[in-house]
């Protein structure tokens, strides 16, 4: 996808580094090119399946990137990506049902809800050890799920079938339009992740991951930094969920709070590499296509088993993912 720039973005030695401004320019150009390419594709490719499938993959990229802001940069594992994703999806559904709102209104609203939820979670649990945060995120999914089940306006367990408003005519159709929106979200998420990574914020995250105490004593506002990671990650994940109802014309709690998404959100950055922004993208594209191939060639249970084994394998052998492996190989050769 956008992985044209070098893999070695994390901690470049100053002598070898090109001017950061130049790299940012290249990145922006690539991002715009990706968006433009998406727009061109909607005009030139007639087969709608391409966009149905691409939506899912691009959504996974956004999901993995959003998760990685907290999980990779700040080092706080979130088992409840679906709580945020679901919050966003239901925010979108609520606004669509209540006001027939456009997707462009739903996105910032979802981001606000997800960010708020992230802040709340962080505020309640980040003072204690990271493992509590992880456990609390499992709890959050159940609570969000229970909440939705008990709100009749959102359809509860029956789900909610909604017809989205007509998309702008130039996009060529609903699925093309939603795909473009999701592509926009993914590019935004990646840009956001990249900014965090190369700025003082990312440096602060790396410092607090290495030693929270030392970071704090070096002037890094660790608690506030972690809170903002929660909020940013929550906002991206929620934004990723918002277009779901526009995509499927339907939403129901078992899907948005289900295991599959939460599992992928963790697995993708882990496989690609958690330390830099191309990692989640690589993981998302790779896992997405492998799973696609696997569902066809082997039985579905084996497919899940495969994800489990791959997770264990990466944690055991390559905790920094594919990018980490590549870096190690490079260093070995030098």
């Amino acid at each position: 996808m956008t992985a044209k720039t070098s893999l070695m973005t994390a901690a470049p030695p100053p002598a070898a580094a090109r001017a950061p401004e130049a790299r940012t320019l290249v990145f922006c150009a690539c991002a715009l090119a990706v968006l433009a390419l998406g727009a061109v594709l909607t005009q030139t490719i007639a087969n709608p399946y391409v966009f149905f499938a691409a939506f899912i993959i691009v959504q996974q990229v956004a999901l993995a990137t959003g998760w990685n802001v907290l999980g990779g940069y700040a080092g706080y594992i979130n088992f409840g990506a679906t709580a945020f994703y679901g919050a966003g999806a239901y925010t979108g559904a609520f606004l669509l049902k209540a006001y027939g709102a456009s997707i462009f209104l739903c996105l910032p609203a979802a981001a606000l809800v997800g960010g708020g939820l992230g802040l709340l979670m962080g505020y309640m649990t980040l003072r204690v050890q990271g493992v509590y945060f992880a456990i609390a995120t499992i709890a959050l999914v159940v609570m969000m799920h229970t909440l939705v089940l008990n709100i009749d306006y959102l359809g509860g367990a029956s789900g909610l079938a909604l017809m989205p408003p007509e998309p702008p005519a130039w996009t060529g159709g609903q699925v093309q339009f939603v795909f473009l929106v999701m592509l926009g979200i993914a590019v935004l998420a990646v840009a956001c992740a990249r900014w965090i990574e190369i700025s003082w914020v990312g440096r602060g995250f790396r410092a607090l991951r290495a030693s929270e105490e030392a970071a704090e004593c070096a002037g890094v506002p660790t608690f506030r930094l972690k809170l903002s990671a929660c909020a940013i990650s929550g906002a991206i994940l929620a934004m990723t969920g918002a277009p779901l109802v526009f995509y499927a014309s339907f939403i129901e709690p078992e899907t948005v709070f289900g295991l599959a998404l939460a599992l992928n959100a963790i697995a993708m950055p882990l496989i690609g590499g958690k330390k830099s922004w191309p990692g989640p993208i690589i993981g998302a594209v790779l896992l997405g296509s492998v799973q696609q191939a696997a569902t066809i060639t082997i039985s579905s249970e084996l497919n899940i088993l495969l994800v489990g084994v791959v997770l264990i394998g990466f944690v055991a052998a390559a905790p920094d993912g594919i990018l980490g492996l590549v870096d190690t190989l490079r260093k070995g050769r030098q």
Partner: protein
Amino acid sequence: MTISRRRLGKLAAATGLALAAPAVWTTGRAQNRPIRIGASFSMTGPLSSTKAGLVGLQLWRDDVNAAGGLLGRQVELVTYDDQSTVAQIPSIYSKLVDIDKVDILVSPYGAVLSAPVMPFIKQRGRFMAGMFALAGNDGVKSDRYFHSAPWGPDAKVNWARGFFEVGKAAGCKRIAVLNADVEFAKVSAAGGKTAAKELGQEVVFEQSYPPNTSDFSAILRNLRGATPDAVFVCSYPPDSSALIRGLSEVGIGDSVKLFGGAMVGPQYAATLQALGSSLNGIVNFNLFVPEPTMVTPAVTSFLDRYTAIAVPEKLDALGYYIPPFYYVAGQLIAAAVTATGSTESAAMATWLHANPVKTLVGTATFNELGDWTERRVLMTQFQGIKGNDIEQFRQAGRQVILDPPALKSGELAQPFLKARGA
């Protein structure tokens, strides 16, 4: 990439030719190319026990192909795993239609998973056989959608009406409604309340509970306090078991004459086997039971062949509930294709609206929404179950049909406590 490899594989299997360009094959001589039926199955995830349906569809395909195919063409199934999640559905059905170019669609399992396909088939004007989606077409109102399950017209309210009819005959006036917080149960409970009122019954207690509730004692005690005559239960497999166990433990009170209705679970072999004799007296829905009024040689042969496949695959050992109706879906498609001489959606739909079809489970006629014009959901009572042997459920007289009257095979044993053998 994966698609062409997949096509290649299928082709190799079908013709024994390993080298052939997929493009040649799809655009090749239309007369000889197979008729492709596309469907999504929940092979994984919470709904994965429904994958037994695939065996039903495969048996139908084998039967049709053994008899020379449809219109002289072989039938081929194209299926994907939707992982029991709505998010996968739009892309799967677009793939079936736009990439795999299937001729005919079969819906995913149930109303939740079908919901995202409905606008799609309406928009594309595609024919689709609906699988167990209760009132699945009531929202979109496609005229090319046909239920294989005999929920009957106005299914939301009426599909379980038999329970209330049986109750009325037994003199039940006060109804309690209990439902799990899942889609099918919630819709059924709402419909049940309406049906009860239409029959002049009063709803004196209603309660929903979260899925996977394992202890029902508090709920049953509250329910007992309302002294209902009948308890309409809309539950899912785990909670069906817990509830029936709770029934034995906490008791239900002397007022209750009828208990059950819309419990999902006591259709499946595993649940039946686990609950055994504690099922006695419960009146619950089913779509097929081996009672003399329903059994035909065709269905017996189907079930025998199904069992032979299902048991080693660890699928539902009885296969009364889901698999026959996938076979029925195939039969509906076969009838329409054969009669119209085409796989054209509009023609098939028009023909099915106008003509009855003889299926494995009886004759189906359809109204404008693709519902069976006659509700044929069974209300059966468990009688004389002893121990936990699964084979007894294959015998007649264990699940006696009380409703509909046309298929009635026995009488309601009452009062409830006596029927339970307590």
